[in-house]
Protein backbone atom coordinates (compact mmCIF):
# COMPACT_ATOMS: atom_id res chain seq x y z
CA UNK A 1 0.00 0.00 0.00
CA UNK A 2 2.87 2.34 0.85
CA UNK A 3 4.43 1.79 -2.58
CA UNK A 4 1.10 2.48 -4.29
CA UNK A 5 0.72 5.69 -2.28
CA UNK A 6 4.22 6.77 -3.28
CA UNK A 7 3.52 6.09 -6.95
CA UNK A 8 0.26 8.00 -6.67
CA UNK A 9 2.04 10.95 -4.99
CA UNK A 10 4.77 10.91 -7.64
CA UNK A 11 2.31 11.16 -10.52
CA UNK A 12 0.20 13.73 -8.71
CA UNK A 13 3.31 15.87 -8.15
CA UNK A 14 4.33 15.38 -11.78
CA UNK A 15 0.96 16.54 -13.10
CA UNK A 16 0.78 19.51 -10.72
CA UNK A 17 4.32 20.59 -11.70
CA UNK A 18 3.70 20.14 -15.43
CA UNK A 19 0.39 22.02 -15.17
CA UNK A 20 2.04 24.79 -13.17
CA UNK A 21 4.79 25.18 -15.78
CA UNK A 22 2.28 25.36 -18.63
CA UNK A 23 0.30 28.02 -16.75
CA UNK A 24 3.49 29.98 -16.08
CA UNK A 25 4.38 29.78 -19.77
CA UNK A 26 0.94 31.13 -20.75
CA UNK A 27 1.21 33.91 -18.16
CA UNK A 28 4.71 34.85 -19.37
CA UNK A 29 3.49 35.02 -22.98
CA UNK A 30 0.56 37.22 -21.94
CA UNK A 31 2.84 39.47 -19.87
CA UNK A 32 5.19 39.99 -22.84
CA UNK A 33 3.03 42.98 -23.86
CA UNK A 34 4.52 44.84 -20.86
CA UNK A 35 8.08 44.10 -21.91
CA UNK A 36 8.92 47.72 -22.73
CA UNK A 37 7.50 49.06 -19.46
CA UNK A 38 10.44 47.81 -17.43
CA UNK A 39 13.52 48.41 -19.62
CA UNK A 40 16.00 48.29 -16.73
CA UNK A 41 14.90 44.86 -15.52
CA UNK A 42 14.87 43.53 -19.09
CA UNK A 43 18.32 44.93 -19.84
CA UNK A 44 19.74 43.40 -16.65
CA UNK A 45 18.51 39.97 -17.69
CA UNK A 46 19.61 40.38 -21.32
CA UNK A 47 23.11 41.20 -20.10
CA UNK A 48 23.06 38.27 -17.68
CA UNK A 49 21.97 35.72 -20.28
CA UNK A 50 23.86 37.20 -23.22
CA UNK A 51 27.01 39.16 -22.40
CA UNK A 52 27.93 37.45 -19.14
CA UNK A 53 27.67 34.01 -20.76
CA UNK A 54 29.92 34.95 -23.68
CA UNK A 55 33.30 33.97 -22.15
CA UNK A 56 32.12 30.48 -21.12
CA UNK A 57 30.18 29.99 -24.38
CA UNK A 58 33.27 31.05 -26.38
CA UNK A 59 35.54 28.58 -24.65
CA UNK A 60 33.16 25.65 -24.92
CA UNK A 61 32.23 26.42 -28.53
CA UNK A 62 35.88 26.79 -29.56
CA UNK A 63 36.87 23.43 -28.09
CA UNK A 64 33.72 21.74 -29.40
CA UNK A 65 34.69 22.77 -32.93
CA UNK A 66 38.31 21.77 -32.41
CA UNK A 67 37.43 18.35 -30.94
CA UNK A 68 34.91 17.62 -33.69
CA UNK A 69 37.47 18.47 -36.37
CA UNK A 70 40.15 16.42 -34.64
CA UNK A 71 37.98 13.33 -34.01
CA UNK A 72 36.56 13.16 -37.51
CA UNK A 73 39.55 14.68 -39.31
CA UNK A 74 42.06 11.99 -38.40
CA UNK A 75 39.75 9.22 -39.67
CA UNK A 76 38.84 11.16 -42.81
CA UNK A 77 42.50 11.80 -43.51
CA UNK A 78 43.20 8.05 -43.41
CA UNK A 79 40.52 7.66 -46.09
CA UNK A 80 41.78 10.64 -48.05
CA UNK A 81 38.57 12.53 -47.39
CA UNK A 82 39.94 15.27 -45.12
CA UNK A 83 38.42 17.95 -47.35
CA UNK A 84 35.02 16.91 -45.96
CA UNK A 85 35.90 18.09 -42.45
CA UNK A 86 34.21 21.45 -43.09
CA UNK A 87 30.99 19.65 -44.03
CA UNK A 88 30.95 17.56 -40.87
CA UNK A 89 31.93 20.36 -38.50
CA UNK A 90 29.43 22.76 -40.09
CA UNK A 91 26.48 20.38 -40.07
CA UNK A 92 27.08 19.04 -36.58
CA UNK A 93 27.52 22.51 -35.11
CA UNK A 94 24.56 24.14 -36.83
CA UNK A 95 22.07 21.32 -36.45
CA UNK A 96 23.05 19.77 -33.13
CA UNK A 97 26.01 20.79 -31.04
CA UNK A 98 25.65 24.55 -31.28
CA UNK A 99 22.04 24.74 -30.00
CA UNK A 100 22.35 21.91 -27.45
CA UNK A 101 25.69 22.84 -25.89
CA UNK A 102 24.75 26.52 -25.70
CA UNK A 103 21.45 25.62 -24.03
CA UNK A 104 23.32 23.41 -21.54
CA UNK A 105 25.71 26.24 -20.71
CA UNK A 106 22.96 28.84 -20.21
CA UNK A 107 20.66 26.49 -18.28
CA UNK A 108 23.47 25.45 -15.94
CA UNK A 109 24.93 28.92 -15.47
CA UNK A 110 21.97 31.31 -15.66
CA UNK A 111 19.01 28.97 -15.03
CA UNK A 112 20.49 27.61 -11.81
CA UNK A 113 21.18 31.17 -10.61
CA UNK A 114 17.57 32.14 -11.38
CA UNK A 115 16.18 29.17 -9.48
CA UNK A 116 18.41 29.97 -6.49
CA UNK A 117 17.56 33.69 -6.56
CA UNK A 118 13.81 33.24 -6.95
CA UNK A 119 13.88 30.38 -4.43
CA UNK A 120 15.59 32.58 -1.86
CA UNK A 121 13.02 35.30 -2.52
CA UNK A 122 10.21 32.76 -2.02
CA UNK A 123 11.43 31.45 1.31
CA UNK A 124 12.23 34.92 2.66
CA UNK A 125 8.70 36.21 1.94
CA UNK A 126 9.91 38.60 -0.79
CA UNK A 127 7.50 37.11 -3.35
CA UNK A 128 4.61 37.46 -0.89
CA UNK A 129 5.74 41.03 -0.22
CA UNK A 130 5.55 41.79 -3.96
CA UNK A 131 2.06 40.29 -4.16
CA UNK A 132 0.97 42.25 -1.11
CA UNK A 133 2.10 45.45 -2.87
CA UNK A 134 -0.17 44.54 -5.78
CA UNK A 135 2.83 43.67 -7.98
CA UNK A 136 2.52 40.55 -10.14
CA UNK A 137 5.54 38.31 -9.54
CA UNK A 138 5.28 36.85 -13.04
CA UNK A 139 5.43 40.30 -14.67
CA UNK A 140 8.11 41.54 -12.28
CA UNK A 141 10.36 38.48 -12.08
CA UNK A 142 9.55 35.72 -14.56
CA UNK A 143 8.67 37.61 -17.75
CA UNK A 144 11.98 39.54 -18.04
CA UNK A 145 13.88 36.27 -17.59
CA UNK A 146 11.65 34.47 -20.12
CA UNK A 147 12.06 37.29 -22.64
CA UNK A 148 15.83 37.40 -22.26
CA UNK A 149 16.06 33.61 -22.66
CA UNK A 150 13.99 33.44 -25.86
CA UNK A 151 15.84 36.36 -27.45
CA UNK A 152 19.41 35.74 -26.31
CA UNK A 153 19.43 31.95 -26.68
CA UNK A 154 19.25 32.01 -30.53
CA UNK A 155 21.82 34.85 -30.67
CA UNK A 156 24.20 33.02 -28.36
CA UNK A 157 23.71 29.89 -30.42
CA UNK A 158 24.68 31.68 -33.64
CA UNK A 159 27.73 33.10 -31.85
CA UNK A 160 28.70 29.64 -30.55
CA UNK A 161 28.33 28.11 -34.01
CA UNK A 162 30.60 30.76 -35.54
CA UNK A 163 33.24 30.31 -32.81
CA UNK A 164 32.97 26.52 -33.14
CA UNK A 165 33.49 26.73 -36.91
CA UNK A 166 36.57 28.84 -36.34
CA UNK A 167 37.85 26.30 -33.78
CA UNK A 168 37.34 23.54 -36.34
CA UNK A 169 39.25 25.60 -38.92
CA UNK A 170 42.18 26.00 -36.53
CA UNK A 171 42.62 22.23 -36.24
CA UNK A 172 41.79 21.47 -39.87
CA UNK A 173 44.21 23.99 -41.32
CA UNK A 174 47.08 23.78 -38.82
CA UNK A 175 46.98 20.11 -37.83
CA UNK A 176 45.36 18.25 -40.70
CA UNK A 177 46.62 20.43 -43.52
CA UNK A 178 43.27 21.24 -45.12
CA UNK A 179 43.39 24.54 -47.00
CA UNK A 180 41.27 27.18 -45.27
CA UNK A 181 39.36 28.03 -48.43
CA UNK A 182 38.43 24.36 -48.93
CA UNK A 183 37.30 24.00 -45.30
CA UNK A 184 34.95 26.98 -45.52
CA UNK A 185 33.81 26.21 -49.10
CA UNK A 186 32.76 22.66 -48.16
CA UNK A 187 31.03 23.99 -45.08
CA UNK A 188 29.17 26.64 -47.08
CA UNK A 189 28.13 24.14 -49.78
CA UNK A 190 26.75 21.64 -47.30
CA UNK A 191 24.64 24.04 -45.24
CA UNK A 192 21.30 25.44 -46.33
CA UNK A 193 18.67 27.69 -44.76
CA UNK A 194 16.77 24.68 -43.45
CA UNK A 195 19.78 23.69 -41.29
CA UNK A 196 20.10 27.16 -39.87
CA UNK A 197 16.36 27.44 -39.26
CA UNK A 198 16.40 24.07 -37.48
CA UNK A 199 19.28 25.18 -35.24
CA UNK A 200 17.62 28.49 -34.39
CA UNK A 201 14.26 26.86 -33.75
CA UNK A 202 15.92 24.45 -31.35
CA UNK A 203 17.67 27.33 -29.57
CA UNK A 204 14.35 29.16 -29.17
CA UNK A 205 12.55 26.08 -27.79
CA UNK A 206 15.43 25.34 -25.39
CA UNK A 207 15.28 28.97 -24.18
CA UNK A 208 11.55 28.60 -23.49
CA UNK A 209 12.09 25.30 -21.68
CA UNK A 210 14.92 26.21 -19.35
CA UNK A 211 13.54 29.66 -18.47
CA UNK A 212 10.10 28.31 -17.54
CA UNK A 213 11.53 25.33 -15.63
CA UNK A 214 13.97 27.46 -13.63
CA UNK A 215 11.49 30.28 -12.90
CA UNK A 216 8.76 27.84 -11.88
CA UNK A 217 11.10 25.84 -9.65
CA UNK A 218 12.34 29.04 -8.00
CA UNK A 219 8.92 30.60 -7.51
CA UNK A 220 7.51 27.46 -5.90
CA UNK A 221 10.41 26.87 -3.50
CA UNK A 222 9.53 25.97 0.08
CA UNK A 223 11.36 24.85 3.24
CA UNK A 224 14.14 27.39 3.69
CA UNK A 225 17.77 27.00 2.66
CA UNK A 226 17.41 23.26 2.09
CA UNK A 227 14.51 23.91 -0.28
CA UNK A 228 16.57 26.47 -2.22
CA UNK A 229 19.37 23.93 -2.69
CA UNK A 230 16.91 21.29 -3.83
CA UNK A 231 15.20 23.71 -6.25
CA UNK A 232 18.52 24.72 -7.79
CA UNK A 233 19.57 21.13 -8.42
CA UNK A 234 16.11 20.19 -9.66
CA UNK A 235 15.94 23.13 -12.08
CA UNK A 236 19.22 22.11 -13.76
CA UNK A 237 18.39 18.38 -13.89
CA UNK A 238 14.90 18.95 -15.32
CA UNK A 239 16.10 21.63 -17.77
CA UNK A 240 18.92 19.49 -19.19
CA UNK A 241 16.66 16.44 -19.46
CA UNK A 242 13.91 18.38 -21.22
CA UNK A 243 16.41 19.98 -23.60
CA UNK A 244 17.61 16.53 -24.70
CA UNK A 245 14.08 15.15 -25.03
CA UNK A 246 12.97 18.20 -27.02
CA UNK A 247 16.12 17.94 -29.16
CA UNK A 248 15.25 14.38 -30.14
CA UNK A 249 11.68 15.21 -31.11
CA UNK A 250 12.58 18.37 -33.02
CA UNK A 251 15.26 16.47 -34.95
CA UNK A 252 12.87 13.55 -35.52
CA UNK A 253 9.99 15.61 -36.88
CA UNK A 254 11.72 18.64 -38.41
CA UNK A 255 15.21 17.39 -39.21
Amino acid sequence: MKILKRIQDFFLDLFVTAGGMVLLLIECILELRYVFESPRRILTQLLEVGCNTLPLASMIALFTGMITALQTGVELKNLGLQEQIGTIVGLSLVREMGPVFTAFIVAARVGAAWAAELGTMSVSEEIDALRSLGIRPVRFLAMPRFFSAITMQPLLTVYSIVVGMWGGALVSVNYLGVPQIIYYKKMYDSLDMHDLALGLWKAFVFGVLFSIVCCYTGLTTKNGAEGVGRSTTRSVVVSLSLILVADYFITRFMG
Partner: protein
Amino acid sequence: MEIEVRNLHKRFGRNGVLRGIDLSIPAGKITVIVGGSGSGKSVLLKHLTGLIRPDRGEVLVDGRDIARLPESALFPLRQRIAMIFQSGGLLGSMSVGENVALGLLEHKLAPPEKIPEIVREKLALVHLERKEKEMPANLSGGMRKRVSIARALTLNPELILYDEPTAGLDPPMAETIDDLILELARDLKVTTVVVTHDLISIFKLADTINMLHQGRIIESSSPEAILRSSNPIVQEFIKRR
Protein backbone atom coordinates in the same frame (compact mmCIF):
# COMPACT_ATOMS: atom_id res chain seq x y z
CA MET B 1 -12.02 49.54 5.56
CA GLU B 2 -13.96 46.83 7.42
CA ILE B 3 -13.24 43.12 7.42
CA GLU B 4 -15.50 40.28 8.41
CA VAL B 5 -14.19 36.71 8.58
CA ARG B 6 -16.78 33.94 8.66
CA ASN B 7 -16.26 30.27 9.39
CA LEU B 8 -12.73 30.24 7.94
CA HIS B 9 -11.05 26.85 7.56
CA LYS B 10 -7.53 26.11 6.34
CA ARG B 11 -5.63 22.85 6.35
CA PHE B 12 -2.03 22.12 5.32
CA GLY B 13 -1.78 18.41 4.60
CA ARG B 14 -3.25 16.69 7.65
CA ASN B 15 -2.76 19.70 9.88
CA GLY B 16 -5.95 21.75 10.35
CA VAL B 17 -4.55 25.23 11.12
CA LEU B 18 -7.74 27.28 11.06
CA ARG B 19 -10.91 25.47 12.13
CA GLY B 20 -13.81 27.89 11.82
CA ILE B 21 -12.57 31.41 12.49
CA ASP B 22 -15.18 34.12 13.02
CA LEU B 23 -13.66 37.57 13.36
CA SER B 24 -14.75 41.16 12.93
CA ILE B 25 -12.23 43.94 12.23
CA PRO B 26 -13.83 47.36 12.65
CA ALA B 27 -12.72 50.34 10.55
CA GLY B 28 -10.27 52.80 12.11
CA LYS B 29 -9.45 50.61 15.13
CA ILE B 30 -6.48 48.52 16.17
CA THR B 31 -7.37 44.85 16.32
CA VAL B 32 -4.79 42.55 17.87
CA ILE B 33 -4.74 38.81 17.23
CA VAL B 34 -2.83 36.87 19.85
CA GLY B 35 -1.96 33.25 20.38
CA GLY B 36 0.94 30.92 20.97
CA SER B 37 3.59 30.08 18.40
CA GLY B 38 2.20 27.95 15.59
CA SER B 39 -1.41 28.78 16.43
CA GLY B 40 -2.09 30.04 12.89
CA LYS B 41 -1.93 33.81 13.46
CA SER B 42 0.22 34.54 10.41
CA VAL B 43 -1.86 32.16 8.27
CA LEU B 44 -5.01 34.04 9.32
CA LEU B 45 -3.35 37.38 8.50
CA LYS B 46 -2.36 36.21 5.02
CA HIS B 47 -5.98 35.24 4.36
CA LEU B 48 -7.01 38.87 4.94
CA THR B 49 -5.10 40.02 1.87
CA GLY B 50 -5.70 36.93 -0.25
CA LEU B 51 -2.11 35.65 -0.08
CA ILE B 52 -3.53 32.33 1.14
CA ARG B 53 -6.86 30.90 -0.04
CA PRO B 54 -9.16 29.28 2.52
CA ASP B 55 -10.49 25.74 2.14
CA ARG B 56 -13.85 26.96 3.37
CA GLY B 57 -15.39 30.18 4.69
CA GLU B 58 -15.56 33.85 3.73
CA VAL B 59 -13.28 36.86 4.03
CA LEU B 60 -15.44 39.92 3.44
CA VAL B 61 -13.52 43.12 2.73
CA ASP B 62 -16.00 46.00 2.65
CA GLY B 63 -18.71 43.37 2.05
CA ARG B 64 -16.88 41.65 -0.87
CA ASP B 65 -15.73 38.06 -0.42
CA ILE B 66 -12.07 38.08 -1.49
CA ALA B 67 -11.73 34.33 -0.98
CA ARG B 68 -13.71 33.85 -4.20
CA LEU B 69 -11.94 36.49 -6.27
CA PRO B 70 -9.42 35.43 -8.93
CA GLU B 71 -5.79 36.41 -8.28
CA SER B 72 -5.96 39.10 -10.98
CA ALA B 73 -8.81 40.85 -9.13
CA LEU B 74 -6.83 40.82 -5.89
CA PHE B 75 -3.92 42.91 -7.17
CA PRO B 76 -5.85 46.23 -7.23
CA LEU B 77 -7.31 45.42 -3.79
CA ARG B 78 -3.87 44.77 -2.34
CA GLN B 79 -2.84 48.33 -3.17
CA ARG B 80 -5.33 49.35 -0.44
CA ILE B 81 -4.10 46.75 2.06
CA ALA B 82 -0.52 46.92 3.29
CA MET B 83 1.16 43.98 4.92
CA ILE B 84 4.26 44.24 7.07
CA PHE B 85 5.98 40.86 7.12
CA GLN B 86 7.77 39.40 10.10
CA SER B 87 11.06 39.45 8.17
CA GLY B 88 10.29 42.83 6.60
CA GLY B 89 9.93 41.30 3.13
CA LEU B 90 12.37 43.82 1.60
CA LEU B 91 13.89 42.91 -1.75
CA GLY B 92 17.52 42.13 -0.91
CA SER B 93 18.79 43.13 -4.35
CA MET B 94 17.42 46.68 -4.05
CA SER B 95 18.48 49.61 -1.89
CA VAL B 96 16.20 51.04 0.80
CA GLY B 97 15.18 53.88 -1.51
CA GLU B 98 14.39 51.50 -4.38
CA ASN B 99 12.36 49.28 -2.05
CA VAL B 100 10.29 52.21 -0.82
CA ALA B 101 9.79 53.51 -4.37
CA LEU B 102 8.80 50.10 -5.72
CA GLY B 103 5.01 50.41 -5.41
CA LEU B 104 5.01 53.99 -6.74
CA LEU B 105 7.04 53.04 -9.80
CA GLU B 106 5.21 49.83 -10.60
CA HIS B 107 1.74 51.36 -10.27
CA LYS B 108 2.83 54.69 -11.78
CA LEU B 109 1.36 56.56 -8.82
CA ALA B 110 3.73 59.50 -9.07
CA PRO B 111 5.84 61.16 -11.77
CA PRO B 112 9.42 59.79 -11.68
CA GLU B 113 10.92 63.18 -10.70
CA LYS B 114 8.67 63.34 -7.60
CA ILE B 115 9.50 59.84 -6.36
CA PRO B 116 12.76 60.63 -4.48
CA GLU B 117 10.94 63.33 -2.52
CA ILE B 118 8.08 60.97 -1.60
CA VAL B 119 10.59 58.29 -0.58
CA ARG B 120 12.39 60.77 1.73
CA GLU B 121 9.06 61.87 3.20
CA LYS B 122 7.91 58.30 3.94
CA LEU B 123 11.28 57.36 5.42
CA ALA B 124 11.08 60.43 7.64
CA LEU B 125 7.65 59.25 8.85
CA VAL B 126 9.32 56.10 10.20
CA HIS B 127 12.29 58.12 11.52
CA LEU B 128 14.79 56.80 8.97
CA GLU B 129 16.23 59.88 7.32
CA ARG B 130 19.14 59.59 4.85
CA LYS B 131 19.03 55.79 4.56
CA GLU B 132 17.94 55.63 0.90
CA LYS B 133 21.25 54.31 -0.36
CA GLU B 134 21.67 51.56 2.26
CA MET B 135 21.11 47.92 1.33
CA PRO B 136 18.62 45.91 3.45
CA ALA B 137 21.36 43.47 4.51
CA ASN B 138 23.16 46.33 6.29
CA LEU B 139 20.15 47.31 8.41
CA SER B 140 19.09 46.05 11.83
CA GLY B 141 15.87 44.03 12.21
CA GLY B 142 14.00 47.05 13.56
CA MET B 143 15.18 49.28 10.73
CA ARG B 144 14.15 46.72 8.13
CA LYS B 145 10.65 46.64 9.61
CA ARG B 146 10.47 50.43 9.56
CA VAL B 147 11.56 50.48 5.90
CA SER B 148 8.85 47.93 5.21
CA ILE B 149 6.31 50.22 6.88
CA ALA B 150 7.59 53.19 4.84
CA ARG B 151 7.22 51.13 1.66
CA ALA B 152 3.66 50.22 2.62
CA LEU B 153 2.78 53.85 3.34
CA THR B 154 3.65 54.98 -0.19
CA LEU B 155 0.43 53.33 -1.41
CA ASN B 156 -1.68 55.23 1.17
CA PRO B 157 -3.29 52.02 2.47
CA GLU B 158 -6.65 51.90 4.22
CA LEU B 159 -5.68 48.80 6.17
CA ILE B 160 -2.27 47.81 7.56
CA LEU B 161 -1.58 44.24 8.66
CA TYR B 162 1.44 43.73 10.91
CA ASP B 163 2.85 40.21 11.29
CA GLU B 164 4.80 39.98 14.58
CA PRO B 165 6.14 43.54 14.28
CA THR B 166 8.24 43.39 17.46
CA ALA B 167 9.48 39.79 17.22
CA GLY B 168 13.24 39.50 17.63
CA LEU B 169 13.73 43.16 18.58
CA ASP B 170 15.32 44.54 21.74
CA PRO B 171 12.86 46.27 24.15
CA PRO B 172 13.68 49.89 23.14
CA MET B 173 13.32 49.05 19.43
CA ALA B 174 10.10 47.11 20.11
CA GLU B 175 8.76 50.19 21.90
CA THR B 176 9.74 52.39 18.94
CA ILE B 177 7.81 50.09 16.57
CA ASP B 178 4.77 50.05 18.89
CA ASP B 179 4.82 53.85 19.07
CA LEU B 180 5.05 54.01 15.29
CA ILE B 181 2.04 51.70 14.85
CA LEU B 182 0.02 53.86 17.26
CA GLU B 183 1.17 57.06 15.57
CA LEU B 184 0.20 55.81 12.11
CA ALA B 185 -3.16 54.45 13.26
CA ARG B 186 -3.95 57.77 14.96
CA ASP B 187 -2.57 60.21 12.37
CA LEU B 188 -3.51 58.38 9.17
CA LYS B 189 -6.72 56.86 10.60
CA VAL B 190 -6.00 53.50 9.00
CA THR B 191 -7.58 50.26 10.15
CA THR B 192 -4.86 48.21 11.82
CA VAL B 193 -4.47 44.50 12.51
CA VAL B 194 -1.51 43.34 14.58
CA VAL B 195 -0.58 39.71 15.04
CA THR B 196 1.71 39.21 18.00
CA HIS B 197 2.43 37.26 21.13
CA ASP B 198 4.32 40.14 22.75
CA LEU B 199 2.25 40.92 25.86
CA ILE B 200 3.54 44.47 26.25
CA SER B 201 2.61 45.30 22.65
CA ILE B 202 -0.79 43.64 23.02
CA PHE B 203 -1.94 45.83 25.87
CA LYS B 204 -0.29 48.97 24.54
CA LEU B 205 -1.86 48.77 21.08
CA ALA B 206 -5.16 46.94 21.20
CA ASP B 207 -8.65 48.35 20.96
CA THR B 208 -9.83 44.75 20.66
CA ILE B 209 -7.94 41.56 21.47
CA ASN B 210 -8.75 38.26 19.76
CA MET B 211 -7.28 35.13 21.28
CA LEU B 212 -6.54 32.36 18.75
CA HIS B 213 -6.23 28.84 20.11
CA GLN B 214 -6.28 25.53 18.24
CA GLY B 215 -7.61 27.15 15.09
CA ARG B 216 -10.47 29.07 16.68
CA ILE B 217 -11.01 32.51 18.23
CA ILE B 218 -11.79 31.63 21.82
CA GLU B 219 -12.09 35.17 23.21
CA SER B 220 -12.69 38.55 21.59
CA SER B 221 -12.93 41.60 23.82
CA SER B 222 -11.30 44.79 25.06
CA PRO B 223 -7.94 44.64 26.91
CA GLU B 224 -9.69 45.31 30.22
CA ALA B 225 -12.19 42.48 29.66
CA ILE B 226 -9.39 40.12 28.62
CA LEU B 227 -7.63 40.77 31.91
CA ARG B 228 -10.83 39.76 33.75
CA SER B 229 -11.50 36.74 31.52
CA SER B 230 -12.38 33.51 33.28
CA ASN B 231 -11.14 31.41 30.36
CA PRO B 232 -8.19 29.36 31.71
CA ILE B 233 -6.37 29.40 28.34
CA VAL B 234 -6.54 33.20 28.22
CA GLN B 235 -5.40 33.42 31.85
CA GLU B 236 -2.53 31.04 31.15
CA PHE B 237 -1.45 33.24 28.23
CA ILE B 238 -1.56 36.58 30.06
CA LYS B 239 -0.32 35.52 33.49
CA ARG B 240 3.31 36.06 32.37
CA ARG B 241 2.54 39.74 32.02
